[in-house]
């Protein structure tokens, strides 16, 4: 049992590293790649949990994660970036160093919180829960420290990855929930894409700072 | 028993008419003293009676804009002042109807008379009436609270608000020198001057708008109405003198149960003190000049301050000042 736990812990750790990678990447392409890597790792982690804990339904989750988030969505994003001629550079609000430091603080926070909350349960999944929470927070952090609309989408979806990771640790996440979550992600992506396309059409840029300047009655 | 009751009733009635009878004499004494001190012959002592009789004989001229209030006010003012004056113990305390009004009600009765007079002043719609009424009410806002505080202080000292009770208390305990009572005396003198429109507050013989207060309010009255108002102001002066005597120099006043002899002694004592007080008033009026109207708040305010300190001391010592 210990080995199973070790491997899932390892996979969660790799996901976390991918989150960090998302934070410090300079180019959009690299960001998408890091996201793809994170999603594939997620798929592996879920599959491992399915195999080691004998929960076959999780295989479907893994497959969806791999297919949608590991392959389809990164490809779609790449295509969007090419077609729209989006800036290949990611505009930053704060420097890489600051973002990484904040990321580390968030990891500490999630660790402290999970320890506090799960005091009475000595579940093996505790560390994984902490890592999953950290991944969620880092995804959020990415949404706010990067100015590119594509990176916002990616940040949002890495939050999703963290949530799914946390959910696998919990007892029995039903398939229906996963499917509906997946569909909502798809629709969100679709909406994002449409918006990005439209915005690009009208304003020649999807830099949100630039977009914001064109908004009326700004204070 | 019935005979006793009748005697009591007559005594009370006698007091009522006594104050009425002696009021013009008191005013006459004041005027005579003032005249003599300024080296004039002066009017005879009975001039007050003669003035009222003369006014009663004259026709009353009313302004076209005067209303029923103007016509009825003098009667009410006179009646209120007369009742108030009759309630202050003069030659005897504890007469038959002494319980009807206490010190608070006395102050309020005088206030009612003043309010009616001020309203009558506003009635004709001339500027003089307005001058008189507004200044009178301004002085009243300072004098009446001072008066109220004075009577409350004395009531605390005597342990009762009944006038007869206060008088009895001060007969029984001769006026010990207490700060509260001394301050009350000073305040009451100032208030009496203010309420009776005497120098330095107001000049009863002037008709200049710069200086009038009381005279301005009654400018439009004539004939019998003016007679009543004049009588009322004389009664008011008698009331204040009587109050000062009753509270601060009550020796000679007979207790209720005294018979005819006691009452006669009280009567003589009271009359003498009344006329002495009127004479002193005359001396005072000659010695001092009238103040500007807007210095009056300071002057009457002094009374208020004295009265307030007096009552404060009375409270802080737990009511034990008499």
């Amino acid at each position: 049992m210990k080995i199973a736990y070790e491997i899932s812990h390892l996979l969660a750790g790799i996901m976390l590293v991918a989150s960090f990678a998302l934070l410090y990447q300079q180019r959009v392409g690299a960001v998408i790649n890091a996201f793809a890597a994170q999603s594939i790792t997620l798929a592996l982690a879920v599959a491992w949990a399915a195999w080691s804990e004998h929960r076959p339904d999780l295989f479907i989750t893994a497959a969806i994660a791999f297919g949608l988030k590991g392959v389809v969505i990164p490809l779609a994003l790449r295509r969007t970036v090419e077609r729209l001629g989006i800036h290949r550079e990611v505009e930053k609000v704060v420097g890489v160093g600051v973002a990484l430091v904040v990321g580390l603080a968030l990891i500490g926070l999630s660790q402290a919180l999970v320890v506090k909350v799960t005091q009475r349960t000595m579940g093996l999944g505790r560390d994984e829960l902490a890592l999953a929470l950290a991944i969620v927070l880092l995804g959020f952090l990415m949404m706010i420290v990067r100015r590119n609309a594509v990176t916002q989408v990616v940040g949002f979806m890495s939050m999703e990855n963290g949530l799914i990771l946390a959910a696998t640790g919990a007892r029995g996440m039903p398939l229906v929930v996963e499917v509906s979550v997946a569909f909502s992600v798809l629709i969100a992506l679709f909406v994002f894409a449409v918006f990005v396309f439209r915005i690009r059409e009208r304003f020649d840029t999807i830099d949100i700072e630039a977009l914001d300047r064109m908004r009326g009655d700004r204070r | 028993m019935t005979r006793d009751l009748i005697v009591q009733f007559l005594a009370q009635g006698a007091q009522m008419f006594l104050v009425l009878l002696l009021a013009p004499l008191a005013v006459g004494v004041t005027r005579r003293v003032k005249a003599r001190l300024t080296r004039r012959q002066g009017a005879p002592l009975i001039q007050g009676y003669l003035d009222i009789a003369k006014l009663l004989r004259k026709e009353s001229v009313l302004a076209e804009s005067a209303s029923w209030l103007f016509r009825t006010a003098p009667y009410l003012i006179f009646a209120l002042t007369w009742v108030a004056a009759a309630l202050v113990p003069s030659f005897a305390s504890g007469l038959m109807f002494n319980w009807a009004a206490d010190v608070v009600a006395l102050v309020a009765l005088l206030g009612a008379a003043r309010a009616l007079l001020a309203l009558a002043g506003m009635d004709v719609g001339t500027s003089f009436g307005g001058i008189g009424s507004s200044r009178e009410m301004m002085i009243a806002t300072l004098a009446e609270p001072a008066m109220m505080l004075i009577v409350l202080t004395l009531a605390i000292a005597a342990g009762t608000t009944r006038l007869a009770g206060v008088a009895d208390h001060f007969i029984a305990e001769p006026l010990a020198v207490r700060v509260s009572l001394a301050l009350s005396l000073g305040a009451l003198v100032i208030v009496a001057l203010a309420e009776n429109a005497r120098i330095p507050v107001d000049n009863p013989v002037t008709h200049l708008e710069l200086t009038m207060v009381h005279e301005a309010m009654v400018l439009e009255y004539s004939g019998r109405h003016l007679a009543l108002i004049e009588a009322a102001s004389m009664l008011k002066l008698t009331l204040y003198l009587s109050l000062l005597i009753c509270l601060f120099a009550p020796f000679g006043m007979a207790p209720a149960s005294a018979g005819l002899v006691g009452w006669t002694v009280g009567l003589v004592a009271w009359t003498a003190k009344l006329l002495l007080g009127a004479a002193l008033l005359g001396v005072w009026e000659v010695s001092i000049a009238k103040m500007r109207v807007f210095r009056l708040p300071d002057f009457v305010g002094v009374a208020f301050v004295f009265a307030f300190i007096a009552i404060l001391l009375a409270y802080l010592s737990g009511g034990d000042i008499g």
Partner: protein
Amino acid sequence: MPALYASGAALAVLAGAAGLAILTRGALRLVYPLAILAALVLGAVDLHVLLTGVVLTDSLPIGLPTIGLRLRLDSLSAFFGVVINGGVLAASVYSLGLDHEKDLTPRVEPLFPLFAAAMNLVLLADDAYGFLFSWELMSLSSWALVVARHTDPESRRASHLYLVMAVIGTTALLFAFGGLAGPAGGYSFDTIRAHAAQPAIAALVLAAALIGCGSKGGLIPLHAWLPLAHPAAPSHVSALMSGVMTKVAIYGFVRIAFDLLGPPAWWWALPPIVLGAITAVLGLLYAVLDRDLKRVLAYSTIENVGLIFVALGLALAFRANGFAQAAAVALTAALLHVLNHSWFKSLLFLGAGAVLHATGRRDLDGLGGLIRTMPRTAIFFLVGALAISALPPLNGFVSEWLLFQSVLAGPMLPQASLRFAVPAIGAMLALAAALAAACFVRVYGTAFLGRPRTVEAARAHDVPLAQQVAMGALALLCILGGLLGAPLASVLAPLVRTFSGGMLPASGSGPTPFSLVAFDSARSVYDAAVIALFVAIASLVTLVVVHRVSERRTRRGPAWDCGFPDPSPVTQYTASSFAQPLRRVYGTVAFSARETVTMPPPGDRGTARLQVSLVDYLWRVFYAAPGGAVLRLAERLNMLQFLTIRRYLVLMFAALVILLSIAAVTT
């Protein structure tokens, strides 16, 4: 309990009248007759409870899920019910005289019965939810009545301020009831009465109750809405708001401080005494300097509410120290003043409404001479003005006398701060009494006496019969209330004993059945009937003698005016001229009153100008400053509306991280 059902039916009638009036225009004219009927029924039930001393309770299964709506009519509620329904009755009778076509509108009429019903419900409520619900209903319906003339900027401003103050008041009461209910959450009054609150909680509850009820009553510094809102409403509604709604506020305070909080501590008395005295004096200083008839009356309401709070504070002080009879005197003074004030203030407001109706003017400087053009209104208003100035033998003096008697009992209080405060309060009360007389001499003299200053005043006519009947009945009540003060006090005696522990000597213990005895007949007696009799006899005797002795002829002529009669009514004193000595004496201190005169140079025939400026410091400190601070804060926070998407995300992220940190750190 059939009696309570009768009340319920009357309330339903009121609600029905309100509903009907909203739906059909024709039903508008039914509103006031129905209101009269309902007020009579409710008043009868209240009188029954007050005289017999029964306590009626009931509960309805609406409202809070655990308790429902509990209703209770005890003698305190019944007494205030008599006050309220009397006011509603007078206002409704008055409104029968309104012109159906011109004056009745769907903006006002439907809300009137709702307002009346809400006030009655506040009295009946026996749990916190019912109380607050009815209180809010009362506030909102009166607010809607204030804002009825919404095209008038004064009404809009008044209604805005009123709404803000009403919300503040209700929030304070919410805290008060929360404190009373305690952590167990027992909101019904029976549960609250059963266990007394701890001293710290009791202090907070008292403060909150003082804020909540004081703001509705007009206690300084929560008073600023009253002089704006009361005049803005239609006159019969102003009469209800000033004469009756403020009494509901007093009821709330009495209920909380005397009933729900349990045995009082001595220092509870200090805030109501001090605030009440300041309110009394300042209210009149405002009144004396104001030039609008209805606003003067509103400020005078503030003064009277201050007096009532002083009396209540004294009752608390005496009760806390165990002096039951002194507490009874003070409480009787407070309750009688509640009754008296509702009568004469309603009378004065209805009179002001009559004046407004007849002349279309509310400014004192536009009136004058109305005693000839509106003779009956003038008589009734005179009675009201004399009554409110606390002149014997009218009813205002009865409660004033009792109040002074309770002040006189002050030296027996052991606590030093109370012994220092009470004489100061006594001085302020005396000042307030004198200022009230000055104020109302000014109002009556300017508006009714003298010569008409404008065309409208000259063309005034007296008002319809219904309005005269209403005013006349109230004037008669003022006179009777003055003469029958002692019997009234003895009717209140059981109620007073319940809440103060003592009672006045019984009605017959004085020399006559009409003597009002405060402590015992050797100490203090006031006999209004005898004094009135004396004055009447003296007047009659004088009249007879004078007419026998003197020249009876009278002649009309022009005014003497020292030989310079001026035909123009402009030369007579105006309201501001009358106030000028008072402004100089008091205004320079309280309001930094300044007069500037600009005279044209000699030879120039232009007009001279007199400009008076007054600074309202209370407004600046308690309203303008916090209001400005809130607005500035809101301006800053307004930037939150215009953030970029990323900044919103930052906000969300920050909130999330902070919450997680708190969860991580706290135990």
